[in-house]
């Protein structure tokens, strides 16, 4: 079981790294799906089956598919891959990576220096989660609902095909159509 956990963790991390480094966005998305699935495995192993299911259904299933649809809509070709390659080869890599690495080390140090204990190992059944969700966190659920509603309306509104309007700041002479 422990081995399985480590393997899943390794896959999740490697897949994440692959996501970040890909040039073809479809590849990146597929790696992202892998990463999410591996995470779901981890969830399952530490006793959160409900969340594992959610991870697969919503994250990997819905959100990532949304991405894929958008990419398809935008109809990207080889040009895009070329451009990504060009952009990735710059030296922009080093400083952010270094920064993040130091931060990671520091946080790791903080984590390691704290108290440690093995996992409880108790399975938390979905029912328990549901009860808790609809009692203690009822307001959170309501807020989440409102957020989603706002997201839906916002997304619809934003993505609607509109007449071409240039913002007045971006307008140049002769650009009116």
């Amino acid at each position, binding site marked *: *079981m*422990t081995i399985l*956990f480590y393997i899943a*963790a390794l896959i*999740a*991390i490697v897949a*994440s790294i692959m*996501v*970040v480094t890909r040039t073809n*966005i479809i590849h*990146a998305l597929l790696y*992202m799906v892998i*990463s*999410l699935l591996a*995470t779901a495995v*981890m*969830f399952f192993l*530490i006793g*959160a089956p*409900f*969340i594992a299911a*959610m991870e697969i259904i*919503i994250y990997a299933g819905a*959100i990532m598919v949304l*991405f894929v649809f958008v990419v398809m*809509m*935008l109809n*990207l070709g080889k040009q895009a891959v070329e*451009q*990504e390659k060009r*952009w*990735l080869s710059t030296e922009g*890599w080093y400083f*952010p990576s270094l920064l*993040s690495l130091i*931060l*990671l080390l520091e*946080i*790791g140090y903080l*984590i390691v220096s704290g108290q*440690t*204990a093995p*996992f409880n*190992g108790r399975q*938390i059944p979905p029912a328990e*989660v549901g009860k*808790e*969700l609809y009692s*203690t*966190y009822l307001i*959170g659920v309501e807020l989440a609902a409102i*957020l*989603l509603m706002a*997201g839906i309306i916002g997304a*619809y*509104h*934003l*993505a609607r*095909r509109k007449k071409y*309007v240039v913002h007045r700041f971006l307008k140049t002479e002769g650009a009116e159509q």
Partner: protein
Amino acid sequence: MIAISLNTGLIIASIMFFTGLIGVMIRKNIMFMLISIEIMLNAAGLAFVFAGAQHGQADGQIMFLFILTTAAAEVAVGLALIIQFYQNLKRSIPMLPII
């Protein structure tokens, strides 16, 4: 029974988080940045679930659910914006970068 301590889980979560962070910082394509943010959110959720598992309580999972909600809303709006950008500024370049 699984013999992993909370620390290990948190370290895994932070590695993933920082991977996402590096992605946000180094990628110039907004789509990739959005995906990287998804990685970060996922890592944060992971840490919550680990912490909840440590105490054997449901709260961590509930937090993950909220994060999930946020991520979904964010992606919906973000992608809508991308589409709109793409339509409005018909650039020759294939993707709208934010440089």
